[in-house]
């Protein structure tokens, strides 16, 4: 085992990136073909090997049933959530229900949890570094959207463990970006990090005081990203085609994938050249068996009209973050742009207009998060009583417990600095009561149904007495990863009570152990067709 190297991994919805610190500077590690970002796509091949990255992305069309993409949209979600239903409608791979309302992906005869899928992407990132350095690495900082809830963070951490990584920290993406920009520059500023990724949007407001990075507030939308821009173009292309030919391409999952690919390409082209010429040869056959092509021209003005409401939605979230930080745009000294979609002129202009200032784009928006993660990875690796910088991050969502009648009570407010803990006393309400059940939620509504369920905890092992005689103090802790821990103790005796059940959609220790073995036994395929493609 090698102890002196720790990597930073940006595990993205669409693309992932890995970085290490070399001579004190963060450096993105390319794969053997020089690619610096890698599609977060996992393709299960016929021979049992698994292809991950940009070459796997090509298999979305040719090996559609066995190729998983956008797994991050599903990680840590319940089977009954809207996001899962939406995914089932459009994803060519099979999404099935697992135990306790969890989500599973079925590939041929095998069933995979979402952390297992993400673990394969992480395994590839690990392999890229190991291949580059010619040595083993085992420690990593993995980033998540700042607005990820506890379920999503825990699932991401599980993914890291399954991939054989010692996850030093689950780090918020905007915070990582701020670190990459501010590291070693000794600046004193108030900044906003506008992070629009493939599937999620985050905004964090930070105050940097020399070596201290204090997150004042964070807000986000885990249902909004560059993918949604692609979807708009897809819909536009499909409707145009339907008008011209009477054929709805969206009814066929194969055509849908070609359409999706065309949408993404058109978005990139229109962002760069102000116009996109879409041409997909042989997208479908007409009722007479004649092969048809898809041709369309997308002008920038048309594209801007299509996505304007998505862009505006990000600013509602920005309003919220600034309000929480008790600031206006005038108080900010700088705005950092993160994420591929922020390359689009429409976004750059809108962001500049909203914040009334030029944005900082000194570091590649696709790489900045991984770079920040590698800085933090090194810092944690060397922390033996000192540090060069301090990240004071916050919890993005209000932590709540269920009360009566479907309502919840606030325990820890959103934007509270972490780590933090808060206790709450409960008394038994029946004679001889043996158990106390507590349902924990995250969200901004006092109604349980409008919040995300984190788990149901059942505590037992306290004294058995008449009702009201036993007081149990339940402690809620949010750690530096933003992960929630719940413990309970008998107030009078100080005796810690056992947590007998933790119901959640997550994996248990045994699941993780077997997943680790499965992951370790999986061989990553190296794309032989890479040069040709």
């Amino acid at each position, binding site marked *: 085992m090698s102890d002196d190297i720790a990597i930073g991994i940006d595990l993205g919805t669409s693309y992932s990136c890995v970085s290490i610190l070399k001579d004190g500077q963060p450096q993105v590690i390319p794969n053997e073909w020089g690619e610096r970002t890698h599609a977060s796509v996992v393709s299960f091949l016929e021979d049992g090997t698994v292809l991950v990255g940009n070459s796997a992305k090509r298999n979305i069309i040719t090996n559609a049933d066995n190729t998983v993409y956008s797994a991050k949209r599903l990680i840590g979600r319940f089977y009954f959530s809207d996001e899962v239903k939406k995914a089932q409608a459009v994803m060519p791979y099979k999404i099935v229900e697992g135990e306790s309302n969890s989500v599973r992906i079925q590939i041929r005869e095998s069933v995979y949890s979402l952390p297992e899928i993400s673990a394969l992407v992480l395994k590839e990132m690990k392999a890229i570094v190991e291949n580059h350095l010619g040595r083993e690495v085992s420690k990593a900082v993995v980033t998540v959207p700042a607005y990820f809830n506890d379920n999503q963070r825990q699932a991401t951490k599980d993914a890291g463990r399954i991939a054989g990584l010692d996850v*030093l920290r689950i780090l918020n993406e905007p915070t990582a970006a701020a670190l990459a920009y501010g590291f070693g520059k000794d600046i004193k500023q108030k900044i906003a990090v506008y992070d629009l990724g493939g599937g999620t949007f985050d905004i964090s407001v930070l105050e940097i*005081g020399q*070596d*201290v990075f*204090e997150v004042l507030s964070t807000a986000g939308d885990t249902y909004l990203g560059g993918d949604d821009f692609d979807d708009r173009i897809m819909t536009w292309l499909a409707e145009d085609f339907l008008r011209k030919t009477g054929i709805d391409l969206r009814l066929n999952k194969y055509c849908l994938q070609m359409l999706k690919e065309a949408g993404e390409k058109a978005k990139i082209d229109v962002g760069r050249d102000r116009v996109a010429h879409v041409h997909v040869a042989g997208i479908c056959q007409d009722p007479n068996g004649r092969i048809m092509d898809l041709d369309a021209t997308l002008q920038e003005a048309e594209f801007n009209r299509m996505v304007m409401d998505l862009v505006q939605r990000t600013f509602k979230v920005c309003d919220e973050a600034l309000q929480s930080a008790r600031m206006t745009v005038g108080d900010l000294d700088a705005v950092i742009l993160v994420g591929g979609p922020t390359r689009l002129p429409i976004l750059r202009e809108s962001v500049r207009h909203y914040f009334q200032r030029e944005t900082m784009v000194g570091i590649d928006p696709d790489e900045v998060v991984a770079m920040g993660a590698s800085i933090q990875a090194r*810092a*944690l*690796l*060397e*922390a*033996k*009583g*000192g*540090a*060069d910088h*301090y*990240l*004071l991050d916050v919890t993005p969502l209000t932590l709540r417990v269920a*009360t009566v*009648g479907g*309502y919840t*009570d*606030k325990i820890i*407010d959103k934007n*509270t*600095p*972490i*780590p*933090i*803990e*808060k206790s709450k006393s409960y008394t038994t309400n029946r004679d001889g009561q043996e158990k106390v059940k507590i349902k924990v939620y995250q969200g901004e509504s006092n109604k349980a149904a409008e919040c995300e369920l984190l788990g149901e905890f059942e505590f037992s092992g306290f004294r058995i007495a008449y009702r009201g005689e036993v007081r149990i103090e339940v402690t809620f*802790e949010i750690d*530096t990863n933003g992960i929630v821990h719940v413990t309970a103790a008998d107030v009078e005796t100080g005796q810690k009570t056992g947590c007998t059940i933790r119901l959640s959609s997550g994996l248990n220790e045994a699941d993780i152990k077997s997943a680790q073995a499965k992951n370790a036994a999986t061989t990553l395929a190296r794309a032989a067709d890479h040069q040709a493609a």
Partner: protein
Amino acid sequence: MDSLDPNFEIEVQALVQVLDELDYFQILKVPHEAEPHELKLAYYRESRSYHPDRFYQVQNVELRESVGRIYKRINEAYVVLRDDAKRAKYAQDVLGPDRPKKLRFVEESEQELKKEKEQEIGTTPQGRKFFQAGMLDYMAQRWAAAERNFKLALTYEPANANYKARREEAAKILKTQPGPGT
């Protein structure tokens, strides 16, 4: 990177011993009249000393746990003291006779809010049930049905002021614009 100062370990263990006897001003080492910017400076200063990331690779588990406890309390103190309303209430509490019980801030306002809320929607299951049905009728402008449900809710909780007010409101509308089925 500086290595661990043995004095620091002693300091940490001493601080943990008395942690539950200190108020938030003492935790952050600021005077009661500290200005917001002084509070922030103090928070940064204490973060530089006690942020758990500094000790990530320190082998001494007890020390790491102690630092974690201290830092959580530093965050707790900062959250309360940076909020003007909470700070005013807290400062008064810790100067009062109940000081030992008031060292950690409890958001009573929220418990009061909850009481108000309970008063609003009711305290008995049956009362709530009829009141909620009444509210649905009310929003759908079924005034007669709403009035009936509020009346039923009142039989379970005769003293509920909100139920009374709602019933009177529905009755008043009913008089001016009788809906279908009345």
